[in-house]
């Protein structure tokens, strides 16, 4: 078992401190410093939280998919590496659920305030909801499946989810659209005023650092649990060898 070196521990605390500091700066930028949006007023400030978190919630699933593929590849060839991959898959799945929940909730609040509706079935919202549903079902599978199989079945489901997400997006986009045109690169009249960019970038950086912090924290928790499980299994085997025949 690798030792938790003092260096590693101080790096972890440093990372946590930096991400909290960046988040605080981002909060100050977003809520107090940048100018108010002309059309939406102060309600528009939720944009600086909603959009970075939405972008990040689309990145963690890919890490989950990659980790699941590595798990399936290493499963029979190098079980110890496979366990690491599985721990990463679980952590990123949980953080995906958290981030997409926040994205959905902030989106609903913002939508109610600006458009007057809590929800609509347009491509982006429905795809995000589906992403949320898929990863919640991933966590349910992990909870309900029997112990020896959990990791493999979850990895298989992750492959299904990864195949499904682009299909959902394309099919619903063909179906209808009501979400406002993309703020970045959407065409004439869209885009964020440069005076508002600092808040956006500080929050993007902050939530990325925070996301990585939580993923690694959860990852190390899962690794400890795996080690403890292996230790217990080893003790059980050794104890059974000592039983007099």
């Amino acid at each position, binding site marked *: 078992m690798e030792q938790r070196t003092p260096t590693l521990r101080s790096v972890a605390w440093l990372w946590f401190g930096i991400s909290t500091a960046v988040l605080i700066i981002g909060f100050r930028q977003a809520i107090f410093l940048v100018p108010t949006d002309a059309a939406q007023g102060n309600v528009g400030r939720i944009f600086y939280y909603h959009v970075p978190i939405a972008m990040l919630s689309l990145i963690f699933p890919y890490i989950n998919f990659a980790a699941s593929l590595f798990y*399936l590849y290493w499963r029979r060839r190098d079980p110890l590496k496979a366990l690491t991959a599985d721990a990463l898959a679980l952590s990123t799945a949980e953080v995906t659920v958290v981030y997409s929940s926040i994205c959905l909730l902030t989106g609903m609040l913002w939508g109610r305030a600006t458009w007057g509706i809590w929800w609509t079935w347009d491509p982006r919202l429905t795809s995000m909801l*589906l992403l949320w*549903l*898929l990863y*919640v*079902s991933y966590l*349910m*599978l992990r909870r*309900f*499946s*029997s112990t*020896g*199989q959990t990791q*493999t*079945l979850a990895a*298989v*489901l992750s*492959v*299904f*989810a990864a*195949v*499904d997400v682009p*299909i*959902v997006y394309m*099919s*619903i986009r*063909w*179906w209808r659209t009501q979400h406002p045109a993309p703020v970045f690169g959407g065409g004439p009249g869209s885009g964020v005023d440069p005076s508002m960019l600092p808040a956006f970038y500080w929050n993007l950086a902050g939530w990325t650092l925070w996301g990585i912090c939580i993923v690694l924290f959860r990852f190390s928790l899962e690794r400890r649990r795996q080690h403890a499980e292996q230790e217990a299994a080893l003790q059980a085997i050794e104890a059974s060898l000592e039983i007099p025949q």
Partner: protein
Amino acid sequence: MKYLRHVWDHLRKDLRLEWRSRDSINGMLFFALLVVVVFGLAFDPTSYPTMARQISGGILWVALLFASITALNQSWAREQRNNVLEAQRMAPSPASALFLGKALANMFFVLLVEAVLAPIFIVFFNLHALGNVWLLVLILPLGTWALVVNGTFFAALGLRARNRELLLPLLLLPISLPALLAMVQATTGVLTADLDPIQINTWIKQLLGYNIIFTTVCILLFETVLNAE
């Protein structure tokens, strides 16, 4: 060719076993009928024919979805009695042949239920389709296969899970949503003639694409799931 022979053997086995007890089919039929009746009471379709036509696509597929979930759950049950699943794992034939045989058998049962259900549905909802009804002959099997192939796979996923019956809908519904969207939109488009043929065609192509992609993924990954320990 040997592969197809194996698939055919598995298919015959499932059909024969089901024919002996006919549990699954009877259960599915009655359940689908009950769902149609419940929706009929809830929405009162005969009093509002326009609305009825617009929602009947959705209701038909929801009824079939829930009916097939009840059957899919116990389609693997017969492999668990008498350690049959262990024997299947040790058999030299590819695991995906077992999967395909079972999926085809389930497809047959659900199509049977659809064939019985469609007239009842038309009666209770006073439906007459405004568009080209023959398109439904294409849409119904494609949609059913989308549900059955993923359903059979996820039912196998949950085989040794606790709370097995609960797990299947939790896994199946999110994955099937794009297919559900396509089949409901296509069916409603045909019934209400609100969509022009090109749009219905696009939905059908999406359904076909979904089927091809997920059938391939299921066949490739079934071996992993069967030997998950």
